[in-house]
């Protein structure tokens, strides 16, 4: 039996700034996970991933990351994605320092 497809978002790092970005429903890149398009269909996710990976002049290292639905949009299920969403834990740098 194939594994159940868990909800995912498409994420990458921005080419110039290097920071974490997420693919939105209208195929723009957002700095915030809350804006990300949550993909629940595997075939759709794979096609969106291929298309996003081709945008090499905008982003680097495109991949699918697991999320779970939360009150204000998708939330990371793995701690690595939680750090990518927030920034490092030793200084208030990265996304956590930005005004949402």
């Amino acid at each position, binding site marked *: 039996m194939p594994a159940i497809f868990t909800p995912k978002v498409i994420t990458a*790092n921005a080419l*110039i*700034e290097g920071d974490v970005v997420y693919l939105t429903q209208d195929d723009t890149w957002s700095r915030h996970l809350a804006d990300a398009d949550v993909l629940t269909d595997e075939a759709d996710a794979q096609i969106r991933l291929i298309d996003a990976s081709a945008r090499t002049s905008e982003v680097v290292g495109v991949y699918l990351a697991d999320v779970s639905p939360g009150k204000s949009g998708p939330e990371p299920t793995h701690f*690595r994605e939680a750090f*990518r969403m927030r920034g*490092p*834990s*030793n*200084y208030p740098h990265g996304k956590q320092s930005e005004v949402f």
Partner: protein
Amino acid sequence: MYRYTDFDAAFVAERNAQFRAQVERRIDGSLTEDEFKPLRLMNGLYLQLHAYMLRVAIPYGTLNSAQMRQLAYIAERWDKGYGHFTTRQNIQFNWPQLRDVPDMLDALAEVQMHAIQTSGDTIRNVTADHFAGAAADEIADPRPVAELIRQWSTDHPEFQFLPRKFKIAVTGSPNDRAVTKAHDIGLRMVRNDAGEPGFEVIVGGGLGRTPMIGKVVRDFLPETDLLPYLEAVVSVWNLLGRRDNKYKSRIKITVHEHGIDDIRARVEERFALLRPAFTGVDQQLFAQIKADFAPPAFADRDTGPFDRAYANDPVFRSWADTNLSAHRAPGHAIAQISLKAHGATPGDATADQMRVMADLAERYGHDELRISHEQNVVLPHVHKADLPAIHAALKAAGLATANIGKISDIIACPGMDYCALATARSIPIAQEIATRFDQLKLEHEVGDLKIKISGCINACGHHHVGHIGILGLDRAGVENYQITLGGDHTETAAIGQRTGPGFSADEIVPAIERIVDTYLSERLSADETFIDTFRRVGMTPFKTALYGESDKKQKAA
């Protein structure tokens, strides 16, 4: 200190111009990421978790004040006002933007620094004893050797596409402070029975996924044979080394698979071929380089100010007892500046702190600074009479922590707070351990104890050779920390043994506390260090303290 020749300056300028054009072509879309990645890595530029990271070489850990000030300038101009000193005598800037990196490299070139070969499958920054040229126990200064190797290895046409990265360390002292036995090649400067200078050549050491202690491939290599012999070792590995599997590509695996005797025979055969090609130009160059490292003129002065401060100021006395080491010149000392304030990030210095250290080096320290692989800064040549003033200036800058070699002087890699390869965080664990033992006021009671933390199996935090090693892993989506005990990074190098199942992030600090409590109750006296006690009593009492008497490992992860 070595000064760039016109050739060096032109080479670095040309590389920087090339990289500037490569960055422009990446941004305008002419280069794909697959094409650009090896180019940026050759210039020390990584893409990490939250941003790009630029790794800058500090060759053999030596800096002058102008260089340190320029690092401070770069940190403020293009980064977030700080830099991170690493376990291989590099500095990393964690937040540059791609389009600024060419300007950062030009700013580095202004002070004769670069980021060339700080990444990629090349011969990396050559490291050396951070007490080089200053230590009382030293046979010879290893830095001219390291500089010669840097010049030979930089852009060496045969060694730009090696099976994997290649790391060389040099020590000129019998007390190994350069971790030579955990490098691809470790060089120990020695003299033979006739008193001639040469090297003991150690090959195939390394940490990471498969930790290995290096093996002696040549017990005495005459000084004049160094470069052809190194070229023989690297070229033998370049052919034999496995390119099919990156986890088996390092020379430690090649040595392990073929055996040291087979490798030695191949190296000697290759060396016989290569030796005649080195006609002595290398030795002329070496002689010029040596002249650049002539020791400074050490003044003969009264140490009265030191003696009075030592007698009257307990804070100064504690710092002097902990952070000073014996210097070869009378009246002088080597002063270590701890970048491990309790609760701070190991190895980080702010731009302001960098400028304070630069000022102190310029005013009191013959304009020299060193970076240690233990992520601290060293003033290698200071007169004891100046130490009270130095200490006061350090204290005002938050740099006077008296903990060198103690439990809070922790090596920690950036871990998952920054690194794209990490499987768990390292920095918060280091911060919590340091803060906890500071609260307990146990640090000086515990004495010499090296804790080293890595946030993944690649072991940048040298956990295998820590007296207590901590390895952060991802166990089913949760951070989990394995402990090893009994590692040793010195001339008696040893790989630590795993205690058993790992601990969660909440459990790891209490676990370290139980280990330290066990040491304190087991040691014969305050003079028996942690590592000596461990060697005497073995793993059993520590295991019992961690997991209880029963073999049922309740704490199993």
